[in-house]
C-alpha cells in the first residue's frame, strides 16, 4: 500500500482537489440561494482558461512578460462577467417559474457557451496548447521520490488563498451575512430590506470569478484547453458539492478534496478502474448520508 498512498499521490490529490474546490464553491453558492444547479458553471471555468490564454498570448506577442497576478485577475473577471450575464439574461427571467425550466435553461446556456466558443475563429473547436511556460517558467523540486513542480505550488497556493478570501467574505462581511441569510430564508431576507437580486448577482460574480481562476490554474498545470474542457470538471465539481452537502461552502471544499484524492488513489490502485472507484465512494456516501457530508438534514423542516 505504501506505493499507493505516497507523497506524490498526496500532492496530486491536493492539486486536483483544489481545482474542483474552486469550481464547486460556485455550484454550491448558487444552489444555496436559488436552488439552481447551474450546469453552465463548468463553462465559466473554460472561459477563464481562454481569457488567460489570450492574455498570455497578447503579452507574448508584444514581447512582454505577463504578470501572473494580472492574468489571474483577467481570468477571474472573465468568469465573473460570463456568470453575471448568464444570470441576468437567462436565469433571472425564470426566477419564479418552474424549477425544471431554469435547469434546462442552464443546460442550454452551457451548450451555447461551448458551441459558440468553438465557432469563434480565435477559439475554434480543437485543442490549443496553453502557453504556461510563457507565464511562469517551470521548475521542479524533488522531495524524496516525489516530484513537485512550481506549477503545482502556484495552483495549490492560489486556490487556498482564494478559498480563505471567499470564506472571509461569506463569514465576516455584511454582504456575506446577507448571502447566508438569503440562502436560509429568501422571503425573510427580503423582509429585512435585502434586494435579493443584488445578492444573487453578487453570488454569480463570486462563483464565476473562482471558476475563472480555476480555468487559469488548470491551463498552467494541464496545458491543453478546448471549448469543451469545462464539461467533465464541471460535472465532477457538482458531484463534489453534492458529496460535501450542496449549499455548504466547507462541504464543497471537503467534497472536492475527497473526490480529488479518491481519483488519484483509485488510479494508483488500478489505472483503468480508478475513476470508477472514486464514484463508488460517492454512491456509498450518498446512500448513507443523502444530505452529503456537511449538508443539512432536511425532512424535519415544516
Amino acid at each position: 500500500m505504501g506505493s499507493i498512498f505516497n507523497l506524490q499521490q498526496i500532492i496530486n490529490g491536493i492539486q486536483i482537489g483544489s481545482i474542483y474546490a474552486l469550481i464547486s464553491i460556485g455550484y454550491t453558492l448558487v444552489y444555496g440561494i436559488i436552488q439552481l444547479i447551474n450546469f453552465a458553471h463548468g463553462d465559466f471555468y473554460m472561459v477563464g482558461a481562454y481569457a488567460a490564454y489570450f492574455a498570455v498570448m497578447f503579452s507574448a506577442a508584444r514581447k512582454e512578460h505577463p504578470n501572473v497576478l494580472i492574468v489571474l485577475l483577467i481570468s477571474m473577471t472573465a468568469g465573473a462577467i460570463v456568470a453575471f450575464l448568464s444570470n441576468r439574461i437567462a436565469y433571472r427571467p425564470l426566477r419564479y417559474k418552474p424549477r425544471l425550466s431554469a435547469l434546462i435553461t442552464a443546460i442550454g446556456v452551457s451548450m451555447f457557451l461551448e458551441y459558440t466558443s468553438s465557432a469563434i475563429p480565435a477559439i475554434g473547436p480543437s485543442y490549443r496548447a496553453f502557453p504556461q511556460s510563457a507565464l511562469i517558467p517551470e521548475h521542479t523540486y524533488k522531495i524524496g521520490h516525489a516530484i513537485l513542480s512550481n506549477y503545482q505550488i502556484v495552483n495549490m497556493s492560489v486556490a487556498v488563498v482564494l478559498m480563505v478570501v471567499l470564506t472571509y467574505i461569506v463569514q465576516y462581511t455584511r454582504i456575506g451575512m446577507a448571502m447566508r441569510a438569503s440562502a436560509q430564508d429568501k422571503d425573510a431576507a427580503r423582509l429585512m430590506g435585502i434586494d435579493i437580486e443584488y445578492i444573487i448577482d453578487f453570488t454569480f460574480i463570486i462563483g464565476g470569478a473562482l471558476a475563472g481562476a480555476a480555468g487559469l490554474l488548470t491551463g498552467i498545470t494541464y496545458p491543453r484547453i478546448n471549448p469543451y474542457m469545462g464539461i467533465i470538471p464541471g460535472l465532477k465539481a457538482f458531484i463534489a458539492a453534492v458529496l460535501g452537502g450542496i449549499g455548504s461552502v466547507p462541504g464543497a471544499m471537503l467534497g472536492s478534496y475527497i473526490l480529488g484524492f479518491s481519483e488519484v488513489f483509485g488510479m494508483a490502485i488500478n489505472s483503468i478502474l480508478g475513476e470508477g472507484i472514486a464514484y463508488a465512494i460517492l454512491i456509498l456516501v450518498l446512500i448513507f448520508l443523502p444530505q452529503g457530508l456537511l449538508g443539512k438534514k432536511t425532512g424535519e423542516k415544516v
Partner: protein
Amino acid sequence: MPKKDGSVVLEVKDLVVSYGAIKALKGISFTVKSGEIVTLIGANGAGKTTTLRTISGLLRAEEGHIFYMGDEITNKQPHKIVQMGITHVPEGRRIFPDLTVRENLEMGAWTLRDKKLKQDKMEAVFELFPRLKERQKQSAGTLSGGEQQMLAVGRALMTEAQLVLLDEPSMGLAPMLVEEIFKVITEINEEGKTILLVEQNAEMALQIADYAYVLEVGNITIEGDAKEVAANPKVKEAYLGA
C-alpha cells in the same frame, strides 16, 4: 411621533389576491391609523397572512391598491417597502437559524447605514429582551420557540419602520409566553409604532387592539372598535368560544 392623531398610515382598497384560480382575498378594504393597534382576526385560511404578505410585497395584488402614508406601494418590491417604513414579522417567525442572534439583529438593520444608530437600536432590543443579549452569540436555531419569537420581533425593531406587521406572534407559544409577547406588543406601540396584528388568538388580540376587522374567507365581514367587536355576538360565538 405624535400618537393617535387620526392620520392614516396604511390604506388598503379593494384588494384582490389569488393563488392560481383560487381567490384568497375578494376585494378587502381597511385602514390603519397612526399610533393604533389594529387587529385582523379570522379563522385559518381566511386570508390574514395573505393580506400581510401582499402589503409587504411578497405576493402580488391582482386588483386594488395599497397606500402607505399616502404613497402607493401596491406591488412594489419587498425591499423598497421596507425602506419606506414597513416591517413585517412573518408567520412562523422565520428567523435565520444558522446565523447567530446578533447576526439576525444585524440583518434586521440592513436598511440602516448609520453604525451608531444600529448600535442604539440593538441596545434597545436587548433592553426589551434581555434573554437575547445573553444569547447573542448563539445560533438562532438553538433558541426556544418563545425566544425565537422575541428575536423575530426584535429583528423587526432594528429598522426605522413606523408600521409593524405582526403575523400570529402567539402561535405555538405556551400561555405564559403568549401573555409576555402581547405585553411587548403593547410596549412597542406605546413607544410610538403603529401595529397591524394578525391573530387566531382573537381574545388576546381584541384585548390590546384599538380597532378590529374580522376576515372570513377573503371578505371583511365585521369591523369596529376592538371593544365593540369583542362584544359582538357573532364574534363571541365564532372566535371567542362563548
